[in-house]
């Protein structure tokens, strides 16, 4: 008999298992257990545009376990990036609560958020967001600089991270001396160098051609297999199909949250 967490929440839109439903609908303020990297309850983000309120997220419930590989999909303007910013602790919700590794992030101040970003989150952006004037090695070292890691160890770990994405021979190159795929690998190395609990990617292949995209997806696949929690925003179904679980947003709410197989069966990808 499979564990309770594996029982699918049949026919329900939204959360993929009953365990997840249970954890997000639990009493507000109740800390989730150790398995859960991310628990969001009624996550809301509104923007006040000079009197007019834009509701980017309208009560998103989501729970993600350690080692999961999740894709977030949805049409343009559905709130994917907004959700990523909240999960990545770049932003705080207007309402609702967000637990990351058992810590209530939604109540934190800016410096605490910065610390969490440094320790727990690895970002990979569509536009790479590398420092243009710094070498690949220095870019990868940067999170360790802000983490207060001593210089010698910093260098060692950055070199290891670059090696893990196959760029040992490019460490002194600047971003403009690298191809798009190589830049994204540097960004991945930078995201991983602090051994974060989640790797967050917002359209990581959005600026890459299909061959390079496949390469980068391979890197993600391997990372996920080695136990790295990965959350990835994409609007391409074939990219999303690499993930084990697909969350679809619409109008700032979760439209569906399925295992990949079920998502594939439903959408025909």
């Amino acid at each position, binding site marked *: 008999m499979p564990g309770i967490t594996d029982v699918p929440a049949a026919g329900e839109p939204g959360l993929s298992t009953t365990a997840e439903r249970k954890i997000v609908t639990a009493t507000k303020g109740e800390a989730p257990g150790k398995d859960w990297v991310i628990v969001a309850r009624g996550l809301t983000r509104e923007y006040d545009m000079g009197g007019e309120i834009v509701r980017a997220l309208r009560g998103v419930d989501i729970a993600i376990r350690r080692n999961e590989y999740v894709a977030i999909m949805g049409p343009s303007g559905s709130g994917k990036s907004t959700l990523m910013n909240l999960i990545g602790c770049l932003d705080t919700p207007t309402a609702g609560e967000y637990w990351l590794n058992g810590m209530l992030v939604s109540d934190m101040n800016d410096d605490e958020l910065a610390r969490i970003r440094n320790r727990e989150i690895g970002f990979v952006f569509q536009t790479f*967001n590398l420092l243009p004037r710094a070498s690949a090695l220095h870019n990868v070292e940067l999170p360790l*600089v802000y983490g207060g890691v001593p210089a010698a160890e910093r260098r060692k770990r950055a070199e290891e991270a670059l090696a893990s994405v196959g760029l040992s021979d490019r460490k002194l190159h600047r971003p403009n001396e690298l191809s798009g795929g190589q830049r994204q690998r540097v960004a991945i190395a930078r995201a991983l160098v602090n051994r974060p609990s989640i790797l967050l990617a917002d359209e990581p292949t959005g600026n890459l051609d299909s061959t390079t995209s496949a390469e980068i997806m391979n890197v993600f696949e391997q990372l996920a297999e080695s136990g790295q929690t990965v959350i990835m925003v994409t609007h391409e179904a074939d990219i999303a199909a690499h993930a084990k679980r697909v969350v679809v947003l619409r109008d700032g709410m979760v439209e569906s949250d399925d295992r990949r197989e079920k998502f594939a069966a439903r959408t025909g990808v």
Partner: protein
Amino acid sequence: MRLLDAIRLAFQTLRVQKLKSFFTLAGVTIGVMFLIAVVSIVEGMGSYMENDFVAKLIGTNTFQLRRFPSISDASESEWREWMRRPRITFDDAKEVAAALPPAALWSVESSDNIAIESRYARPRELEASAVDGDYFRIRNMEVAQGRLISPQELALGSRVVVIGQEIATRFFPRLNPIGRTLKVGGTGYEVIGVAAKQGSIFGISLDRFVIASANSPLQRLVNPHGLIDGMKVKLPTTEAMFDARETVRQVMRTRHRLRASQPDNFVMETSESALEFWKKIEGNLVIAGVILPAIALIVGALVIMNIMLVAVSERTREIGIRKAIGAKYRDILAQFLVEATTLSIIGAAIGVALGIILSQTIAALSPLPASVAPWSIVTGILVGAGVGVVAGVYPASRAARLDPIVALRAE
């Protein structure tokens, strides 16, 4: 993030933006350069005044009795009061000399510009002094050639002169002046000695003098009958000098019939009292020397602030990236503060170097002496650092306050 990392980052940015950094530095560099140069020159003049000028003019443990101060910046009314004072006379000098302790040396002296000529050069107005007493011993004067005027010759008013090096070369070119005749105010004098080289102060030669006895005909040319410019008294110790000065004061007050309530109508200058005048001027010079560079530094600070604001907006995305990967408020603040401060310290260091070069150049090309004060170098660097911090605070805090999401979206 540690300070070392912040400084390394600052240097990296400076290397990349060389030209912009250069202009950023200019204001601070100029300010510090002038600060160093002005302070050096004022300091140089000060130590010169203290060590050379006044010492040469008056001498140690010596005071000079005069009608009014020899160097001053007197007001119009002071000046008028001085001009009403009685002049110092030979009779005063005689009585003063009699009241002095046996260890004291004294001299009387009167000087004026007198026409001087010889068979070998055209006449020219130059300073001639009529002296008596221990004049040569008080001045510590030695001869390069010949001998000094003896006490007997002084007393008798013999027609002999001791001349300075410049007079010797001017009036006796390529000749040995000893034994030759020098005409002073139309009267012939035998040159018996050429004084050792005295050097110059502020570019004014000290070797341009003619000395004869106060009992010689020269006296009548430099002062009306019975009058002298002043009297010098030298004692073996400072204490004895001050005691003697009190004695002389009483003698002179009695001779001038001053009541107890009346102030002295003569002065007795020591090298220190003559320096008071310099101290006043020095204070003003230092203030001017600080205000002018201060203006340059304020301009420098504004330039740095402006450049840093531009840097912040140009590097908004970089700031967003840094914040996304964990830079805290104070990390970004420190980054830009250290950058501004590093910039202006480099500017200040260049300014110190240029200031030293400038003051040495001025010293070499003009009679103004310059001595670079160590404290002005330290002050220059600290001022540079201060300018950087002040100019950097606002741009840095703007950078540090940026919202990471907004910053990441910047182009």
